[in-house]
């Protein structure tokens, strides 16, 4: 069964061909190796010396246009829309989370943020090579002692002539040892709380920058996650993204983009778990019948279908709103909450359907389970998304008035023009 059929109220032929292309890419380039890459991350750590598969894959994704999927051609992009980004993330995570994470940090958190807030020079200098896949971007907000409470960050940026001097540490940074550029946040005026945070584009090559890998993660073991450290790192003023003190707003809009990619990926994760479960439920026999004939197995499969379809509709609604240039924080956080929790629950059911075999990496479902757990935490915890929905419903939280820089609405004609 084609679980992605009949979404033509949102998607068109371009999205269908994109889906097929990404699916073929994932099945040919990732599937044959993913178990070994995942195991190697657990056994040998996630330092760049063991993660030699990541950059060549990213370079291939760049050449195909995946990394600039939703940016205008004049910035090196493929000129497709924000729904195309969702399709990309779905299909990557249907196979494994680690390349969807690349899409999340490179496209969602970094490039889309520069696209939204950057000046023309910054877009040409950073967005264009990133969209073309010539440079890899990542994002640094979380610190060892500040996660959901981003305003509690302690990184600082002190103005010194035409430079800022950055000091601090960011942790849980995807592609920490691989990315070339990072969109990061630091306090230019610690006395002003959230209004004292500013945003910067920093480069790995800047003196004072260093990175390190984390080891022993539960999931996304085929990827690279770690920390980045700024030690008296001099960053030119022209690398400040947005105005001084605008960093918190920028961080939150970046999360509107990042959470969208995480939600879409989670929908693909549900589909991966569902497809593996359907195949296994037809093959495996107990008590003389395929296990798919047993009602409690059917219930688990039905639940996966329900959660996947609901997640997909929520994600596409957010994508449709992004295309139209509408603020979508409520819709995106709802989709992220639903899809990530559902992805975890569906992977759990998939392991159950596979029985003891699901408990080993002979089948992919235990990897789906470990990968899915992260999405319930990163880019806004389940609890934060839940609180936001109640606050929106009760009117105790409202979207800020129109931002100085909104994420540009999709404009097919303009975006396709060279």
């Amino acid at each position, binding site marked *: *069964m*084609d679980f992605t059929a009949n979404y033509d109220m949102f998607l*068109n*032929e*371009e999205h*269908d*061909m*994109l889906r*097929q*292309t990404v699916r*073929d*890419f994932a099945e*040919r380039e990732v599937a044959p190796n993913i178990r070994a890459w995942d195991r190697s991350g657990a056994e040998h750590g996630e330092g760049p010396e063991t993660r030699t598969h990541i950059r060549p894959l990213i370079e291939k994704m760049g*050449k*195909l*246009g*995946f990394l600039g*999927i939703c940016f205008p*051609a004049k910035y090196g992009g*493929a*000129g*497709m829309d924000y729904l*195309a980004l969702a399709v990309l993330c779905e299909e990557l995570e249907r196979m494994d989370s680690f390349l969807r994470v690349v899409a999340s940090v490179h496209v969602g958190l970094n490039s889309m943020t520069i696209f939204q807030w950057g000046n023309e020079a910054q877009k040409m200098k950073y967005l264009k090579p990133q969209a073309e896949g010539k440079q890899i971007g990542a994002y640094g907000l979380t610190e060892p002692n500040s996660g959901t409470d981003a305003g509690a960050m302690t990184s600082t940026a002190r103005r010194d002539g035409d430079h800022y001097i950055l000091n601090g540490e960011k942790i849980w940074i995807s592609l920490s040892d691989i990315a070339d550029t990072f969109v990061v946040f630091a306090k230019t005026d610690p006395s002003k709380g959230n209004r004292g945070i500013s945003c910067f584009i920093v480069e790995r090559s800047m003196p004072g920058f260093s990175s390190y890998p984390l080891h022993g993660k539960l999931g996304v073991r085929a990827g690279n996650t770690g920390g980045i450290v700024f030690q008296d790192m001099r960053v030119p003023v022209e690398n400040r993204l947005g105005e001084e003190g605008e960093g918190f707003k920028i961080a939150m809009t970046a999360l509107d983009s990042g959470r969208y990619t995480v939600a879409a990926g989670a929908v693909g994760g549900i589909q991966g778990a569902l497809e593996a479960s359907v195949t296994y439920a037809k093959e495996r026999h107990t008590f003389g019948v395929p296990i798919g004939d047993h009602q409690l197995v059917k219930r688990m499969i039905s639940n996966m279908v329900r959660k996947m379809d609901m997640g997909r509709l929520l994600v596409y609604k957010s994508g449709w709103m992004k295309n139209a240039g509408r603020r979508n924080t409520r819709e995106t956080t709802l989709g992220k909450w639903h899809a990530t929790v559902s992805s975890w629950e569906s992977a759990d059911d998939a392991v159950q359907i596979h029985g003891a075999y699901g408990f080993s990496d002979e089948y992919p479902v235990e990897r789906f389970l470990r990968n899915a757990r992260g999405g319930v935490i990163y880019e806004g915890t389940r609890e934060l998304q839940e609180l936001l929905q109640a606050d929106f419903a009760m009117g105790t939280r409202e979207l800020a008035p129109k931002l100085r820089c909104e994420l540009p609405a999709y404009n097919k004609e303009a975006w*396709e023009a060279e």
Partner: protein
Amino acid sequence: MHIIACIKQVPRDNSVAIDANKRVDVSGIEPILNLFDEYALEAALSLNDEHGGDVTVLSLGSDDTVDQLRRSLAMGATNAVLVTADGEPDVASAVGIVQSAIATLAAADVIVCGRNATDDESAAFGPMLARRMGWTHVTYVTKIVSSSATHLELERSLEDETEVVKVPLPVLISVGKGAVEPRFPSLLRVRKYAKAEVPVIVAGAYTNAASVVDRVPPAARKAGEIIAGADVASKVRTLVDRLIADQAL
């Protein structure tokens, strides 16, 4: 150089059903481009990369085959043609229909096709088309060693050996799974060709030399047997004895 790539849409797997009218029912099975045709198309595109010109991708199929033709355009083909015919042409009829369609196109230097389709497995289409056209043909090609405006040097992978042959153009080659993986479509070309209008040639009447008089699904596989035994060693002993008795070893 003008290269024509003949491609076919096939079901992703062979778990097809046979309906009451003895027709193959592929509903619910994802349609894909025949695996060997992907390699054939890649061979055509790599020749085109080197020599320029045109790659026309042609398929005898139904309306939904347009998706494979558009995908081929997104991979790098320059033209696409869909050929439709009533009924179910057999291989000989299909060759006749495709030959007539090719006659309407610009003269070709090379025709490529997959070594066989993964649905009917006949492997006869390429050689038969070459024979009808009076062209040289080379089967089981896995690599284009070198090419010029007048010749191709081709590697053939045979069961016991690999041979290299040099042939003058025009030539038809049927391609197996080769060393060069088929390229992916780039998103710029996806955007350009996802809705491309594909011209259709409607085939005239034809008469099959052979007609299908019956279709039955393959016999269901016998259930497996779990070998009992006191310990692993005795189970393995029993298994080996059984395999020897069944002449499997």
